[in-house]
């Protein structure tokens, strides 16, 4: 899922202080799971902002709403009838949701309330770690299910670099060396011979370096 973290409240206050009527818009998907922008965080942020502006003696209307998703037309349509009642929308969705909401409500200023960080997993409650960089051409089949693109600082393709020491990465002693993990897993799978195969040059054009990407599946499209 997409991992995000809350922006510092001071930054949010600076962004919203000019707007009188504000809608804080949460998202029920990834940002709810990573506890950055779900219904609960919407409530907490709304309360904190109300406290702040009341203390400052500034009258503001701060309303709360959480949509099932902000990256889908049909859910975003749910605020069609109320969107124009606000001077701005503070979206707690990931960057995708913020942009999609902005596209849909062209004349309403959109402010992001979270920093979108990476594609990751729930390591444990309150801890999320990166697992995928959406490179567009997955090589996990030959790396023992461990991704050297997202988990190796250098994104090297043929074994660890010289900075790997006792299974840890040189950039951070807490960080596992992805290639150490790959080798360990290939050994446990009895596939260590695969490690000797030199990886072909990776197709990077499917990654961001090929420009913004698009996936089209004609067979599921509704419009002719």
């Amino acid at each position, binding site marked *: 899922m997409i991992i995000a973290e809350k922006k*510092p*409240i*001071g930054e949010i*206050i600076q962004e919203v202080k000019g707007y009188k009527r504000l809608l804080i818009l949460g998202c029920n998907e990834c940002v709810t799971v990573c506890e950055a922008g779900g219904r*609960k965080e919407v*409530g*907490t942020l709304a*309360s*904190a*902002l*109300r*406290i*702040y502006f*009341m*203390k400052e003696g500034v009258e503001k209307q701060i309303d709360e709403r959480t949509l099932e998703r902000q990256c889908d037309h049909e859910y975003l349509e749910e605020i069609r009838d109320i969107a124009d009642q606000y001077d701005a929308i503070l979206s707690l969705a990931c960057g995708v949701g913020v942009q999609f909401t902005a596209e849909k409500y062209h004349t309403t200023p959109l402010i992001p309330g979270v920093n979108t960080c990476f594609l990751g997993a729930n390591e444990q409650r309150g801890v999320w770690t990166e697992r995928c960089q959406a490179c567009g051409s997955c090589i996990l089949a030959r790396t023992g299910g461990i991704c050297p693109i997202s988990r190796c600082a250098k994104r090297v393709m043929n074994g660890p670099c010289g900075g790997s020491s006792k299974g840890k990465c040189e950039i951070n002693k807490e960080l596992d060396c992805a290639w150490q993990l790959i080798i360990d897993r290939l050994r446990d799978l009895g596939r260590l011979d695969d490690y000797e195969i030199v990886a072909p040059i990776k197709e990077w054009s499917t990654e961001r370096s090929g420009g913004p990407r698009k996936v089209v599946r004609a067979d599921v499209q509704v419009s002719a």
Partner: protein
Amino acid sequence: MADKFEPQIIGFCCKYCAYAAADLAGSMRLSYPSCIKIVQVPCTGRIDVIHILKAIEEGADGVMVAGCLEGECHFLTGNLKAKKRVKYVRKILEDIGIEPERVVMFNLSSAMGPRFAEIATEMADTIKKIGPSRVRS
């Protein structure tokens, strides 16, 4: 004017310790400030960040969360969770320019009636010192 300030303090009290301790304080005829409005909770682990913020937002001058002694929570770790949440709320308050001292966590057992009266007085004194909340809707 300052002498007349009668703070409004919300006390979230765990049923298994602080609430019983408050009861005991009453039975022992100990007096404690009447400005503490007690809300019984099944465990301080039930208290969420939003409950404390809402109390402040609605105009409370202070919030005290009173749970079991550490290691003695009826539900094992509820009070430790509450401790982290109180810390988090204090950070939010600090960030928005409200005195974090308005929100305090206490730990006591059900047998500590006099201690309850003590912390209630302590809390009321702290809030009187800080002054009334500037949050008024």
